[in-house]
Every structure is written in structure tokens, then in C-alpha cells.
């Protein structure tokens, strides 16, 4: 028998509200707000309150999927990344770097987003960078 609360940052937007993930016998069973935390002080929005629901969802993907002959097939990360690199290279060669756009995410850290825009500008060669908070 084990019950504990794990303090973490809500994964849904860039605000950074903290919340507790309730862990019962190794499984997530719910969320509790973090009273006294500097960002939201015990409050959460509806996304934060449901931030545990997707983690153990049966529909959650565990591997990348590659569309082969019209249907999605499970693939390894190496295989998926190699395909993305190959296709991005083909698109750039055929239509130019500005035919490619990069969408970053408010759910990522600053550092991860920095790497992504660096990838867009230095590797792909485009300034087409936007983020999910404007979608």
C-alpha cells in the first residue's frame, strides 16, 4: 500500500502552475492543487485539474507511427526521425527552405524552444517559427 503526492508543473500551458499528482500504488489517480505555490496558490484551471488523465490512457501512443500504404504502423524512434530528416531534406531541395514552417510549444521549456528555433534557422534555414499558443 502506497499513497503519495508528487509536486510537478502543469504540462498544458506556459503559465507554470504547480500541482500534485496523486499516486496510489504506483498509478496516477488524480490531481490536487498546490496551496502556497507562488504561481496559482492552490488554484487550477480545468486543464490542470485533468492533467493526470492522459498519462495512463489506453489510447496514448507509445511509439511513433509511420503511414505505410495508407495505414499507420508502429515504428522505432530512429526509423521515424530518419524518415522526417529525409523528407524535410527532399522538401527543402525541391521547394526551398521557406516552404517549411516550425511550430514550437508552450508546453516545452525555454531551452527546448530555443533549440527548436535554432534548428529552424540554422539547420533548415527559415524564419518560419511559431508556437501552439497562437493556434
Amino acid at each position: 500500500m502506497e499513497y503519495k503526492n508528487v509536486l510537478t508543473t502543469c504540462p498544458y500551458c506556459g503559465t507554470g502552475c504547480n500541482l500534485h499528482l496523486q499516486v496510489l500504488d504506483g498509478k496516477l489517480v488524480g490531481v490536487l492543487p498546490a496551496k502556497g505555490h507562488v504561481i496559482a496558490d492552490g488554484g487550477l484551471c480545468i486543464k490542470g485539474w485533468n492533467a493526470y488523465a492522459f498519462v495512463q490512457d489506453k489510447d496514448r501512443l507509445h511509439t511513433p507511427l509511420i503511414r505505410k500504404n495508407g495505414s499507420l504502423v508502429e515504428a522505432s524512434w530512429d526509423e521515424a526521425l530518419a524518415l522526417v530528416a529525409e523528407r524535410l531534406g527532399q522538401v527543402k531541395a525541391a521547394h526551398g527552405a521557406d516552404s517549411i514552417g516550425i511550430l514550437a510549444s508552450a508546453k516545452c521549456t525555454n531551452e527546448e524552444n530555443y533549440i527548436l528555433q535554432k534548428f529552424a534557422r540554422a539547420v533548415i534555414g527559415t524564419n518560419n517559427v511559431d508556437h501552439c499558443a497562437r493556434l
Partner: protein
Amino acid sequence: MSDRLNDLRQAVERLLPEVDGVVALKQGPGGIVAPHLFQREQPADLAALALWPKYPVPDTLKIIQKAHPGSTLAVVCRGCEERGIVEMAKHAQIDLAKVRMVGLQCVADEATFCRCAKPFTAHATVTVGDKIEGVPDALTDAFLTKSQEEKLAFWKEQFTRCIKCYGCRNICPQCFCNVCALEDETWVETGRLPMPMPPMYHLVRAMHMTAKCVACRECEETCPAGIPMAIQFRLIAHDVQQMFGYETGAVIDQKPPQLLVLEEGDYAKTGLPH
């Protein structure tokens, strides 16, 4: 004046060998507090035992007990939380026979924060801290003399700020229905803010809290919009007390009004229209 934290630590330490676990608050990273299951296998956890801020521990107790129905658990509970546990037991959410309650008496600052009329436990066999008297709830008392128009204007302004986070429902230990009416499009239209008048979300919730709310004020505390919704529940509790002589969570073997079969003449005593 007693050292509540030290006394509580000793009380929990004494209980640990006798039960499968003790539900109480624990300080975590950055000093942030959360409910925790203390167990004899991890005595070092007791160093981080905490008193405040309070959390809805009756719900934590329910979650653990439902997964481990054979276990004997203890819980550190304040007056409101004890009433919550008693009320949940009446609605078959908690098996009281397998629960040992450690009563933590609130201090004046805590009672003032909660506008609490009963900041003390009544059934816990072990208690920590000195019992103090309740404090008046000026916010709720002001409603007793407000006109219908004034009340409507007040709630209209308050509910306009609601962002429908469902936090008040989620945090409430007394909200345990498997199917929640508040998720039905008939009552709460998805995606519409501010919610239209009448605000069905809040009215349905207020009705469902009848004879269930134990005034723990967790809903008000977690509300990002700062809506003082406990006022409604306390006014309803006042009516329930007058109509049915029922005080939520106070007496273990008194049936709540929802479970009562009214005898001939009982309905007339409530003063409700026929």
C-alpha cells in the same frame, strides 16, 4: 498553549504500529504541503509532518480505503474534516469501523481564515491541540438581512467571474457521484463564458450540497476567481438545521434528510409549500 506539531508527531508515531497507515499532511519540495500516507516502514517521513495549509484529507482517505478495503487506517482530521468523514460514511463512501481519527484542533488564526463555527473535532478518540470556540461568519451573516434583489445582484457579479474550472466540485470530498449532473450539456453549456443567468452550474451544485457540505471551505480556497460560494452552502445548512434538525456530519447515527423516509406529518413540519 501546546506545541501542536510536536504533539501530533508523537500521536502519529504511537499509532503507526497499530494501523496500516496514517493519512496526514507532509511537507514536500519548496515547503509545499500535501496529503501523504505515513507508514511504519518509513518512520523518517514523520520529520516532514505538517499542519497547514489544510487539504481535503477525507477524499484522500476514501481513495486509499476503496483500493484497500481490508486495511485499518488512521487519519489526522480537523473539525470540518471529521464531519466530512462522518457524512461520507453515511453515504457509504468510507467505512468508519476501519478508521481511527486523530483530531487536530484548529487555532484562532485558522478558524478566522475559514470563518469557522466549529473548529474542533467531536468524535476523534485522540486529539491534539486545545479546543477553541468558533468565530462568527460575517460574510454569511450579512446575507440574513439582505433583500432578494441584493442577493441576486451579489451572486450575478460573483458568478460572472467563474471560469468553469470545476475546481470546487473536484476538490469537494462530498462530491462523489459516479455520474455528475454538472457535466450534462442540459445544465452547463460547454465553451460558454461567462455562464448565462441563471448560473445552473452553481445552482445545481448548491442544491447537491444540501445536508452534505461540512463547511471546510476547500471550494472557496481553490476557486481561481475567489467566489465565496460557501456562503450559499452555509445558508442552506442553516435551513436544513431548522427544517430537519440535521447538522451535517455532527452525529454519527443520525440519518441525513436525503435518506429519511418521511412519516405522516413530517413534511408539514419542514414548512415547505405543498
